[in-house]
């Protein structure tokens, strides 16, 4: 009989094991704390035979899948989070955790080794077996077999993390270059259905920006439907604002345009600041469950 097509991650299995052993594991417990809990249990219950039986079942489950993966795969290639851990560091920890030469015996390796290993090493130990036969699906980061752990699969330690820490949802002004100069009117695809006057400030703001064609088409459709007060207000704004401000306003209009009730009234001077700081169309929040936008 064939097996299910989907495989669970090692972390799923470890969490189920921990829960079965009475561990107070909350669903929002992080990865490190999950394996720390496994580590704690291994240490605390080293001499408890009732504990080692279920643990053997956990390992047997993983080993079975490793030895005969069949068509089983994870639901997403990057679902196995242990693969993001630093293999080099794991190997160093593993080496440090092993008993001195001459102390190890052939039997009881897990019992002897596990309590001495760190939590990440435990996770890595399980992971190495998991990926040994490609059971990690098509994960590009699953290349932990064969190289003895000399390949780092952790892409999360570069400087981009710090750089990203200050990232916001504001548009990158450098991505938009609005010069309001005459543009080539050679009928680009995005303006095929655009009814804006090509000499208008609104059209030129869209056309000379570097937003993609999808957004151009969108903005064009939106601007074509603006009432006179909005048309005048945005024209004034685009004609006088800096490129960065135009970029911000275009970004905000991209968010606002579609069916927004803000456009049912007249343009107001106060909208200018809201367009520039991205608060004009500050969004309500998503929810789950069938509902209608106006309900």
């Amino acid at each position, binding site marked *: 009989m*064939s*097996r*299910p*097509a*989907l495989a*669970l*991650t*090692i*972390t*799923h299995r470890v*969490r189920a094991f921990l*829960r079965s052993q009475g561990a107070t594991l*909350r*669903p*929002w*417990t*992080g*990865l490190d704390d*999950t394996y720390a809990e496994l580590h704690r249990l291994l240490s605390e219950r080293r001499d408890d035979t009732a504990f080692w039986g279920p643990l053997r079942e956990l390992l047997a489950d993983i080993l079975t899948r490793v030895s005969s993966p069949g068509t089983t795969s*994870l*639901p*997403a*290639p*990057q*679902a*196995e*989070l242990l693969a*993001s851990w630093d293999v080099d560091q794991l190997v160093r920890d593993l080496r440090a955790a092993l008993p001195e030469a001459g102390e190890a015996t052939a039997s009881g390796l897990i019992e002897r080794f596990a309590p001495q290993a760190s939590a990440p090493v435990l996770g890595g130990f399980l992971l190495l077996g998991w990926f040994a036969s490609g059971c990690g699906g098509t994960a590009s980061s699953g290349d932990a077999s064969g190289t003895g752990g000399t390949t780092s699969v952790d*892409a*999360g330690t570069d400087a*981009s*993390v710090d750089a*990203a820490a200050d*990232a916001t*949802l504001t548009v990158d002004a450098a991505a938009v270059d609005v010069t309001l100069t005459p543009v080539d009117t050679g009928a680009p695809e995005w303006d095929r259905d655009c009814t804006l006057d090509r000499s208008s400030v609104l059209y030129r703001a869209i056309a000379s920006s570097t937003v993609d064609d*999808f*957004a151009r088409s969108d903005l064009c459709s939106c601007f074509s439907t603006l009432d006179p007060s909005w048309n005048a207000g945005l024209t004034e704004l685009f004609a006088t604002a800096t490129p960065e401000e135009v970029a911000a306003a275009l970004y905000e209009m*991209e*968010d*606002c*345009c*579609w*069916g*927004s*009730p*803000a456009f049912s009234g007249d343009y107001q001077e106060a909208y200018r600041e809201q367009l520039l700081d991205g608060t004009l*169309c500050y*969004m*309500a*929040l*998503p*929810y*789950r*469950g*069938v*509902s*209608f*936008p*106006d*309900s």
Partner: protein
Amino acid sequence: MTNFAAQIRRSIQHCVWDLTTACNLRCLHCELEAGRRDPAELSPAEALVVAHDLVDAGARRVSLSGGEPLLRKDWPELCQHLARAGVWVSIVTNGLLLDAETLSRAVAAGAQAVTVSLDGLREIHDRIRVSPNGAPSRFDSAVRALQLVAASPLRTSAITHINRWNLPQLDELYELVETLGVELWQVQLAFPFGRVLALREPYLIDPSELPDLAAKLARFQQKGRVRIAPADSIGYYDRHEPLLRINRDGRRSFWMGCMAGCLGVAIASNGDVKGCPALPQEFVVGNVRNEPFGAIWADASRFAYNTEWREELLEGGCAQCDFRRICRAGCTAMAYALTGTIYDNPFCLQRVRS
């Protein structure tokens, strides 16, 4: 800003109430593995107390779901109790039991909308929505139900679990829901939960298919004839998102993180309370038999996965993402189902594109 979810004013914008686990179908993707009625199901008297408590707690909208909610005899009373108090009520059904008389009862009870599940064209829908007793085409029943609702005073919506089987049919499904007069089409990804875990053949779509899916849904949205409502599992932060995630004012929006336990809540047929119906059993934060619903809801710390979320726990790709603070790894249920933690979500447009 470290946690947007902790800064908003918590309120029940939407409650999904699974009235029963009883179901006349055995759908392959059912997270509840619904079929038989749970012996621990709330009694009519207990359910009425819950309805009362939901009103007291300020619930704005309630979706009566299941299982098949129409299999619970007191659904009209519960609907009426909520509706009379001003709650916007919808009924989510597979359509098999929805005839003109049932629809009249829904109207009389004050329901505002009926949502019918539609998971593909005839062959795929019927393959997914398994009938344990050989009921005739479930697809035909769903279509008939949607036609009935569209001709009634109630608002019509359809809901589709997108999977590998029906993904190639989305264009035809769009034409179908448009033809049927569906006002809103909610689409959501099938989760690796429940019966899906036992399937012997691939069912879930691959993350690499998300960009094409998002583009397709955006095109549907642009047509403007049927409102497309992607559920929280579809996202995040690509160019199509403003079109996909339109808020209730009709303005374009974007993903602002899971709001389970902040703006949403779910009640199971046995009285268990969770922040979202898609979350697995581990996320149960109380039971209305043990304490009033209002007391459960009032304790924000029970929904700590959102209210006390911490950026430093993010893992994998989410830990490196520019949007991580507001996104918080996308749909919590999907992240947990995929990875075993709530701190990384490979089903992400941003990640796939990068």
